[in-house]
């Protein structure tokens, strides 16, 4: 960020209209994909006694909404907030760790809430899933911080040679 003052601002990359997908392969694959989706929707409706469309939709749409309205904004907010507090070399590992932790936190919701667990059926949530989820989340964040430290240490020893991505 500090370098930016010495350089003219870069133009932001913009989506060019002429890069919109086209061509035979695109359309054939699109048609194939649409046919497969159509077959799936037909199955959901045709065998509605087995698929229970209401709960099917809840899971399909609910998952997308959870991702788009909860997980993604939280991760983006956390990432943006971290830009202010974290030194540059720490940012990437910590952001990556937060993305992974967010995904796993979402995955852990059912087992942390122990949904479906019952005294009658001890084979569901058969162990201390709550503790497991917390340990994994903690380990991911710790790994992110450790990578940040390693990266920062590497940068300070190889001073001025930080454009290793070139």
């Amino acid at each position, binding site marked *: 960020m500090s370098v930016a003052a010495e350089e003219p601002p870069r133009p932001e990359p913009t989506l060019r209209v002429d890069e919109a997908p086209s061509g035979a392969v695109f359309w054939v694959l699109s048609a194939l994909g649409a046919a497969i989706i159509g077959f799936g929707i037909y199955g959901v409706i045709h065998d509605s006694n087995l698929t229970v469309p209401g709960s099917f939709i809840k899971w399909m749409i609910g998952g997308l909404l959870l991702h788009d309205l909860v997980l993604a904004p939280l991760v983006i907010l956390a990432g943006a907030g971290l830009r202010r507090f974290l030194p540059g070399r720490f940012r990437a590992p910590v952001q*990556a760790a937060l993305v992974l932790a967010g995904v796993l936190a979402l995955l852990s919701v059912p*087992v942390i809430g122990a949904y479906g667990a019952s005294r009658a059926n001890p084979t569901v949530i058969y162990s201390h899933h709550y503790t497991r989820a917390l340990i994994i989340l903690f380990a991911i964040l710790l790994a992110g911080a450790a990578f940040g430290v390693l990266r920062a240490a590497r940068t300070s020893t190889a001073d001025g040679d930080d454009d290793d*991505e070139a």
Partner: protein
Amino acid sequence: MVAERTGGGLDRRGFLWTAFGGAGLVTLVTVGQTFRPLKELAVLAPRKPDFGPQGFPVNKAAAGAGVTKKAMDPGYTLTVDGKVKNKLKLSLAELRAMPRHEADLPITCVEGWSAGARGRGVRVKDLLARAGAENPGHVTVTSLQGGGAYRTSILNAPHLQDDQTLLALEVNGEPLHIDHGFPCRLIAPNQPGVQQTKWLAKVTVDA
């Protein structure tokens, strides 16, 4: 110099790798629920493929399905009816007296876990022959359960002729555990687990 534009944060490549890693991590901590070699890694999966009575998990327990009393009733009988010459009402002892066969088949639950189990019991085709059903093409099996989407399941001709389509009385060398469908459950190849109907009460030849 990509790092500069992102202020040291994730660049596009880093973000893609992170997304890839996230998908991989989710797979890693759950896939063991169905892929046994990775079962010890399935730490966030609700079930483990070898954890449960007789070595595999239970989707719905007898108590949850409300069938315990009927299933444990010493007067239990299995009815074979519909388009048959002789209607049958077989006690558990009569079922056990019939020739028993084995089938090594998976229970693949729609909830995401699967586990192999060695079932042993009466071939459905033997039972239907005994009842005098001629070339049955459509058979409904019904559970002792009072309701629910999986109270019944349907067997068509290919299943009915298959030597591995069993009314299992035992699994993994023991009489069925009540939560696995005692006294008798369906075990057939190429079926989702929910159609391996448990606590069977009736076998009806529809056509």
